[in-house]
Each structure stands twice: as structure tokens, then as C-alpha cells.
């Protein structure tokens, strides 16, 4: 009853906190314009916000793992994450442009087929494991994890509408998923840049003196984004689209084929019907 609502509410709160802590550079000038120029505040703001983001992530991961982790799911996640993490070690014969990353293929498809919690964990764990393996642990990790988690989680939101349009197993399904993945390809870049941006173009105390407004902040961010990553992100979006468009159908089929096997449960028969050793 209450418990049924608690989980979604926690997801929502954590995600909101996450959004706020990612978007703070746009809001902060407003704060500071009216308040005191933070004399001692300088570079600690981005790290502080990373901490907040990390805390939101902890709460969210705890909530999701408590709901979702049977032994089968743990093993399945582990192995699929291994595939995702291994993808970057493969020598690839096709030249692959800049920001392309094959990890979103499985994150989106598993989120779509196995549900929001699985997709979320798939996104989060893929980034954790790649970071651990390549020595890429850092304060950029929480925002990457969060965003990749959102990618997987949001893929599950497509399911009801696909079902309503009865697109499941039809070609429209793959078109929509591919388009969805392309949008996330760009969006992922935009969110990632939100994290580095304050470091590089630190808004903290450049603005208060002039009271620069939100509009100008947006302009600056847009410039930054165009300059640093638009090309990469387009490559990523195109890569995502092609992967899902090319391999989505067989991959979906494989994931669904195994879905049943991973969800088998045994329920004790209602009562022992067999009267054993009864004197006849």
C-alpha cells in the first residue's frame, strides 16, 4: 500500500536531487546575484555538487538493489556488464568515429526488455566496472553513472506505449528504440558537459560582480558545448542509432527468449495431496 508508493517517490526524489545538482551552474548566478559574494567559495562548488549527486545515487542504488536483486539477476547483470565493459577492448575492424560508445546498446535494450530497475543498474554498473578496469575512477563517475542509469531506466518507459500501439516484435519497435537511443546519444553528451563545464569555465565568482543572468549562462554553455562536444555527440547518436537499427531485432529476440528462464519461480504446491503411507 504505502510501500507501493514509497519506491517511486524515492526514485523521483533522488532523480530530482540529481537534476538539481547537475543544473546548478544555471541557477547559481541567480543565487549569488542576490546574496553575498562567497569570499571563500571557489573551486569547492563543483566537488560539493558531485558529493550531493553521489549521495543521491547511493540512495537510489540502495532502493533499486533492494527491489531487484535475486541471484539470477545478480549473475545476469554481472555477465552483461562484463560484455559491455569488454566491448571497449575489442579491436574493431570498422573505423569508429569520436564519441561513439557501444555500451548504450545493451543498456537501452535491457532496460526496455527487463525493466527500469534492471536498466538503471545496467547503466550504473557498466560505468563503475569500466572505470575500475581502466583506472578511470573519479569525481566524473557519479554523473556518468547517474546519466547512464537514467538511460536504462527511461528505456523502460517506452514499454507501455509500445504495448498500446502493439508494436512489440514489429519493425516500428526498433525504429523507435533507435531514435530514442540517438536522442540519448546527444543528451548524454550535454549532461556530461554540465559536469566538466564548471571546472573549465567556472561560474562561481566570475558572475556575481556583474550579475550575469541565466540567459547569458545558457549562451555560454551552448558555446562551450558546440566547441567541445557536438561532433562527438553526433557520432555517438549515430552509432547508437545504427547499432540498434542493425542488431536490435535479434538482440531483443534473444533477451526475450531468456526472460522467461530468468524469472521462473517455484511456488510450493498448496497442500501435499499425496496421502503417503496411509493405512489403506
Amino acid at each position, binding site marked *: 500500500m504505502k510501500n507501493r508508493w514509497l519506491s517511486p517517490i524515492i526514485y523521483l526524489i533522488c532523480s530530482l536531487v540529481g537534476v538539481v545538482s547537475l543544473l546548478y551552474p544555471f541557477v547559481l548566478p541567480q543565487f549569488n546575484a542576490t546574496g553575498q559574494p562567497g569570499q571563500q567559495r571557489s573551486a569547492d562548488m563543483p566537488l560539493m555538487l558531485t558529493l550531493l549527486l553521489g549521495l543521491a545515487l547511493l540512495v537510489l542504488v540502495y532502493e533499486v538493489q533492494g527491489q531487484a536483486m535475486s541471484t539470477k539477476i545478480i549473475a545476469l547483470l554481472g*555477465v552483461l556488464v562484463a560484455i559491455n565493459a569488454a566491448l571497449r577492448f575489442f579491436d574493431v575492424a570498422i573505423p569508429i568515429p569520436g564519441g561513439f560508445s557501444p555500451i548504450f546498446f545493451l543498456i537501452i535494450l535491457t532496460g526496455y526488455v527487463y525493466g527500469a530497475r534492471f536498466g538503471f543498474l545496467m547503466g550504473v554498473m557498466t560505468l563503475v566496472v569500466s572505470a575500475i578496469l581502466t583506472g578511470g575512477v573519479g569525481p566524473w563517475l557519479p554523473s556518468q553513472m547517474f546519466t547512464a542509469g537514467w538511460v536504462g531506466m527511461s528505456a523502460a518507459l517506452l514499454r507501455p506505449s509500445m504495448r498500446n500501439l502493439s508494436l512489440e516484435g514489429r519493425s516500428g519497435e526498433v525504429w523507435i528504440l533507435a531514435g530514442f537511443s540517438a536522442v540519448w546519444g546527444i543528451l548524454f553528451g550535454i549532461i556530461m558537459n554540465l559536469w566538466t563545464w564548471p571546472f573549465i569555465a567556472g561560474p562561481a565568482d566570475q558572475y556575481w*560582480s556583474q550579475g550575469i543572468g541565466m540567459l547569458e549562462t545558457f549562451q555560454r554553455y551552448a558555446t562551450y558545448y558546440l566547441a567541445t562536444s557536438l561532433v562527438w555527440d553526433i557520432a555517438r547518436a549515430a552509432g547508437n542509432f545504427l547499432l540498434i537499427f542493425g542488431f536490435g531485432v535479434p538482440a531483443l529476440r*534473444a533477451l526475450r527468449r531468456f526472460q522467461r528462464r530468468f524469472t521462473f519461480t517455484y511456488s510450493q504446491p498448496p497442500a501435499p495431496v499425496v496421502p503417503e503411507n496411509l493405512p489403506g
Partner: protein
Amino acid sequence: MNTRLHTWTWVAWLIVTLIALSATRNLFYLTLILFCLLVNYFILEASFQKGAYPLSLLRFGLMICGFSTVFNLLTSHNGATVIFSLPQAWPLIGGSYTLEAAVYGLTNGLVLFGILLVFTIFSQVLPVRRLIRLVPRVFFPVAVVTSIAVTFVPTTIRQFHQIKEAQLIRGQRLKSLGDWLPLIVPLLVGGLERALQLSEAMTSRGFASSSPAPGKQSSRLVMVSGLLLVTAGWILGSWSGKESLGLGLIFSGLLLLLGALWWMGRQIPHTNYTREVWQAGDGIVLLGSGVLVFVLLSSFAGLTILGSLYYSAYPVLQWPDFDPWIGSALLALCFPAYIMSLGKK
């Protein structure tokens, strides 16, 4: 290699370095911190656990600094020392170009490079297993997933090469994207099959099938309210200027959240077989870090014998102060490299 630092010593060093990096924008101090980090990086490079970066880290650092300098110069038109000007009417690039903006950009770049360096050292110097052991007990299922993934990566890579060869010999040529299908499907399906077998093996070895219930409602509520408190504290602190109230809220929120996590972690029965040993080297690094934190905090608190950490390029560029006490305390960040190099001899 009998001398190695305790995992928690590395964690402490990491945190202290981060505090130092975010406490100041004074160019002298930043340079000093970066110097210490580079000393660590080059001395410890030999004992790095994972593959080296494709791009040399130094070159990457230069790129970051260069980019942030130029970007800030181009987009921030504040500051008194004007180098040259473009007509105000030009969108975005119009306005005066100042030395302050360039220096400010450079500081940004240095801080970012410092963060990158410290985390690179941290995650390179610790083996994967020790990193996984850092995952708190309450996230035990997640730690197991990580462990499985790390264990299965080599298997997956081997599998992929097998598949690739098998298909190649079958006459499969990799010309277009579609030709990758016979590689991807067996990899995915093989993975799913292996996952089933693995979970069977785990189950039959007594691995509990689910984490201890979805957690008690109360503890989940405590955690969420902790998170909300921290958020509120941060908003209050930076918006309305009520810094002390904000800090209070942040700390109480942290306490609630981490306390709840710790408490729930204790409910999960688990023992650790591998124990790390504390050694004298750990003491030295921890002591140095402690002294540094003390000095930084004293300076924050406005202790007069120490100079201020504060520095800003705006509004008019000036030479930053340099306090020898703070400077020498910062050198403590070199200790890990020193201890580890002792061990090698």
C-alpha cells in the same frame, strides 16, 4: 614489493588532496599541489595496475589548461587588464579580452588537471580487488555484480575472439555493419547462457537468493530525509547566505544518510577473510595528511599567523601571496611516493 600502503591510507590521501585542490585558487599553491601529484605519478607509474592511458597524461593536462585558458579568455569579458577588444555588438565574442580572464581560465584548468591526476593515481595504484572491497557492505549485491563482471571480462574477450575466428573461417567477411550480426548474437546469447549457469552455481554454493528484503521502510525514509536535508542545507547555504545553518543541515543530513547505510550494512551477515596490515608507512602518510588538513582548516578559520588561501584573478590581476607554512604542509602530499619508493629498494 613488501611495502605498500593500506587501502584506507590511499583513501585518506585522496580526500586530503581533494580538499587542498578545492580550498585554493592561489596559483603558487596549485602549482605546488600539482608538483606533488606529478612526483607521485611518475614514481608510482611502475606499479600501476592497469593499462596506461592512450594519451599521455601530461599532454592531456596541457590540453585542458590550454583549452580552459583560451575558452575563458574568449567568453568572459570581465577584468581590468584589457589585452584587446572587439566591438560589443558582436554576439558572444564581442567585448574586451582581459588578462584576468585568461589567468582565471588557467587556474580552472590546473584544478581540473589536479583532480584528474589524483584520481588516476588512486585508481591505478590500487588493484581491482582492493577497489571492490571499498564498496560498503550495504551495497553487497552491487559489489558481487562488480566482481562477477571483472571476472568475466577476460572470458568475454576470449569468447569474442573465438567467435570472430569461427565466423571468419566459415567465410564471413566483415565489410558492412550487418556482417557483425553473426558476431554479436552468439556473444550475447552465450553471455545469457553463462549467466544462467553462473547463478545456478552461486545458488548451489549457498549464495542467498535475495538481498535482505527491500530494507525497512523506516530506514529508507531516514535515508531520503538525510538526502533532502543535505540538499536543503546546500541551497540555504549558497542562496540565502545562512552559511552556518546550511552547514549544520548538511552535516546532520550526511549523518542520517551514512548512518542509515552503515546500520543497514550491519544487518547483512558477512565476514572479510582478507585483512590488510597497517605499516609504519601508513602512519607517516596519515600524519602528513592530518597536518595538512589542520593547516588548511586553520587558514580557513582565519588564524592570523597563516596567510589566506583565498585568491582571485578578478578584478585586477595581482601576484598571489605565498605562506611558507602552507607551502611546506602541502609537500606532505608527496609522502606516498616517498614511502613506495623506499619499499622498492
